[in-house]
């Protein structure tokens, strides 16, 4: 990667008024943001809304980014927080019977997943992930799909590495039990 495209330089250029630098940051991280949000919330519409919110936060708050962590982990932190907030909102809505927890399909068929095979795959994955409690799901996704180290996940979630390993183990065990029963 050319030196001028590293995160630090991109942020500096953006803060100096270079909007193209922000575009590069988005291009670099948009897939990670979308797929992390998608796995967390389990549908395209909500994931898309989270992506837009995360970009807005980046746009407005990059000036206050202190480089205490990497931009990468900061972006994951924002995405995860937004996703967890949405899951909380959903749970509260379900409690007040604003919607049915079993049939949370607001997508109306809208999705970016193209082929039938891909649709089947992602639906199966979303069904499995939905069985995990939100914070366990977060750890499992960050570890298994985003392939982050426990130290990085700790920086994102604020939890201890030991606690995260336990979370991952319980999540994996739960998925194992579920898949065993379904097979």
């Amino acid at each position: 990667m050319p030196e001028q495209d590293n995160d630090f330089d991109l942020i500096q250029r953006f803060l100096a008024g270079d909007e193209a630098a922000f575009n590069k940051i988005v291009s670099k991280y948009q897939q990670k943001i979308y797929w992390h949000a998608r796995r967390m919330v389990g549908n395209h519409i909500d994931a898309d809304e989270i992506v837009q919110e995360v970009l807005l936060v980046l746009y407005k708050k990059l000036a206050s980014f202190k480089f205490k962590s990497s931009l990468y982990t900061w972006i994951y932190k924002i995405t995860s927080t937004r996703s967890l907030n949405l899951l909380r909102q959903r749970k509260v809505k379900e409690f007040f019977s604003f919607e049915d927890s079993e049939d949370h399909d607001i997508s109306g068929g809208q999705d970016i997943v193209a082929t039938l095979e891909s649709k089947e795959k992602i639906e199966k994955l979303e069904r499995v992930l939905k069985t995990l409690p939100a914070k366990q799901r977060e750890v499992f996704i960050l570890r298994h799909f985003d392939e982050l180290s426990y130290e990085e996940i700790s920086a994102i979630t604020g939890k201890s590495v030991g606690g995260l390993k336990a979370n991952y183990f319980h999540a994996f065990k739960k998925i194992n039990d579920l898949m065993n029963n379904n097979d």
Partner: protein
Amino acid sequence: MTNQEKIIRYLDGTLDSTDIEAVKAEIEKSTALRKEYERLLSLKKRLKKLSEVEADPDYFINLLPRFRERINQKKKKSFLPAYALGTVLTALIIFAAVVFLNDSDSTLNLIEISAQLEDNELESILVYYSNGNTYSIDDEEDGSELFLSELFNGDNNSIDMEALKTLSLKYAIDDVLEDVSDQEADLIVNEISNKNILMSN
């Protein structure tokens, strides 16, 4: 540590070097353990495969232009929330001045003022604010004190669940939870999960 736990941790790469060698040796020796290892490894691969999906490339191509369009729209409307918030604050200050005019010891801040308001007064202010609110991140940071003072009884350690229920029905629940901190939101969700409230209809 159970055998299954050992294997999951082994596959996750989080065992220390001594344990890795021990687990390897056990897998070599025990057919049952080797089967369990192969099954869990296969599950891990299957899960990974499930995440490998083909997505419409246009979505990512259009993502940035859509964001830019949204930003431009927000810029055009950005005067409105500030105006609305300013109006609410002015109304509160006038109200507070009238109510506390003769009370020189009163320290006036939004939370204390809002605690003095009758429900209908608070509601009219919130409705007024909600009507002019185009909702942005700045609003989240500035506009939530009134609501939170109602919700958290002022101490942030306990939730007035009846207030949550009432206000949730009146106002957008999304906005409610956007305004609370993670810790506060957890508190709400936990209370709800435990069904630790009495709902009165």
